[in-house]
């Protein structure tokens, strides 16, 4: 017979530290934040600091230090460090978001009054530059055509390059391709513009055109598409390829019908992001598309306009309040266009991603 001996509660040896400790209530961090902002603004106002940015930075500093000290008093050093790290993350997040939000808000504020049907549907032809009126239709059309053509060139080339690198590439050629793609990623846009200018316009003798700009934009776009597509294709499990081979499906069909559909969401996102990136390019467009005040709907012949170049011209060439207003309006349209592309990309990624669950 074994007898169970029960040790009285208080006679048990205490192993290690107690599990309970003083904890600050849940509302402490927001309370500290509110207090720091109040004190920060007070100090800022008292010291006569003009910039609200300085007020904000003082508040952030107070929040970090104050939070640490309070926690260290009540909860101990380890908890205080944990809270400090959390606070740093929050402050960094806010510092990163502030410029983004203020940029968007300011652009909308300045631009929303300018953008209307007339602005979107008229060019600058016959409009006195230094006066009111006119619109961005020619620039919008130019941007859409140039970016569209650049995408038509860059997306298939980039996609096929990535397929080669992931599915076929072995040895030296693949390494060389990867190396040059990396180099291309770092090419400044003005260099891409100069390259097309010297090759297409000077050596081959073509004149300024939207297509000429598209070529330079395509050069900028290809490495982005290759890189993102490559990463997406690598994410496709090898087991799926093997499952397909084991059914007697040839390699090219496996890539076309199994690998690419599985990765299509990510690939589309990558292409859309690359499109968003080149939409805002100014330098090569200025050099190769030249700019125009009138509507030129043929991207293969003669100067065109584009949104970034339009913004630049309205700001620096027109250089008065009417020009600034048109520049803000165009900037708002440009941002909305890029944001729209991003939303579409996310939608496609969600819609086409492999589905689990019921």
């Amino acid at each position: 017979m074994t007898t169970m001996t029960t040790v009285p509660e208080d006679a048990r040896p205490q192993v290690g530290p107690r599990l309970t400790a003083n904890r600050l209530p849940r509302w402490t961090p927001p309370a500290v934040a509110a207090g720091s902002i109040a004190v920060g603004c007070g100090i800022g106002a008292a010291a006569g600091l003009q910039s609200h940015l300085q007020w904000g930075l003082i508040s952030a500093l107070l929040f970090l230090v104050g939070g640490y000290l309070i926690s260290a008093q009540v909860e101990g050093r380890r908890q205080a460090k944990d809270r400090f790290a959390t606070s740093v993350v929050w402050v960094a997040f806010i510092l990163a978001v502030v410029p983004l939000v203020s940029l968007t808000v300011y652009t909308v504020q300045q631009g929303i009054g300018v953008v209307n049907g007339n602005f979107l549907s008229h060019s600058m032809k016959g409009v006195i530059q230094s006066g009111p009126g006119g619109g961005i239709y020619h620039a919008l059309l130019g941007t859409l055509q140039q970016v569209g053509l650049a995408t038509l060139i860059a997306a298939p080339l980039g996609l096929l390059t990535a397929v080669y690198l992931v599915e076929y590439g072995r040895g030296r050629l693949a390494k060389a391709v990867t190396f040059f793609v990396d180099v291309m990623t770092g090419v400044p846009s003005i260099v891409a513009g100069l390259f097309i200018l010297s090759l297409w316009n000077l050596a081959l003798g073509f004149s300024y055109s939207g297509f000429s700009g598209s070529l330079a934009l395509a050069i900028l776009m290809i490495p982005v598409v290759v890189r993102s597509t490559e990463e997406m294709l690598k994410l496709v499990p090898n087991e799926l390829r093997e499952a397909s081979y084991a059914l007697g499906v040839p390699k090219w069909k496996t890539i076309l019908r199994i690998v690419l559909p599985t990765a299509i969401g990510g690939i589309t996102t990558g292409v859309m992001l690359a499109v968003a990136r080149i939409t805002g390019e100014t330098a090569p467009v200025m050099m190769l598309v030249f700019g125009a005040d009138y509507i030129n709907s043929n991207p293969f012949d003669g100067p065109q306009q584009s949104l970034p170049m339009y913004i630049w011209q309205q700001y620096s060439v027109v250089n008065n309040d009417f020009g600034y207003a048109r520049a803000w309006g165009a900037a708002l349209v440009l941002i909305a266009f890029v944001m729209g592309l991003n939303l579409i990309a996310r939608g496609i990624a969600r819609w086409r991603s492999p589905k689990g669950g019921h």
Partner: protein
Amino acid sequence: MAKRIDVSGLSAYYGTTKAIEDISMSIEPRSVTAFIGPSGCGKSTFLRTLNRMHEVIPGARVEGKVLLDDENLYASNVDPVAVRRSIGMVFQRPNPFPTMSIYDNVVAGLRLAGVKKKSVLDDVVERSLKGANLWKEVHNRLNKPGAGLSGGQQQRLCIARAIAVEPQVLLMDEPCSALDPISTLAIEDLIGELKSQFTIVIVTHNMQQAARVSDRTAFFNLAGVGQPGKLIELDDTQRIFSNPSVQATEDYISGRFG
């Protein structure tokens, strides 16, 4: 439909490493042959040489002969794609195509081979899913994604997908290792039914499973780490598990090894 396989003098390499050495055996049609042996002894590698899946891995190559009835799979004019069409494979982890529905998964092999007729595909789906004992569970949700099924159902879906292309031989690489005992039992019952139509080769780490499902058992072993794996013996399952002719086999199945 089922065909026999005769292997002679087969060695397989990964780059310069020899993974299996000089294997010769015969696999009977309409029977289940199980491969057992310790990890790294080359069972799976050998299985993959039987439908030319080994060479899919970069740097991998094979020496020797594999005859399917009388045709050498490694003859220079043989198309590996055609080989895989007649020798199907089920993998260790269920791998349904994630972008496809249950229906599309089953007919993937046929569709990718160019079969488009709806009535033909419908028949194949029903027949294959019934063959894989999955029809009752999924017949009312064929358009739902295949990845939404449980692990055991997914593996049966993969078996349905493999038998939909009507291969002569079905290779199974530890098909139950990722499954619970109930799903395992379902697959084992299925193997018992499928052997009336197909030649089945199964790699397993579970010796009871080999004893339950197979007619013949092959024991593989390796002399040491880094040494190539070799076939020790192939015999009727009952004999392997009761009275093997090689001492190493008896040591392995009775748990005395190393």
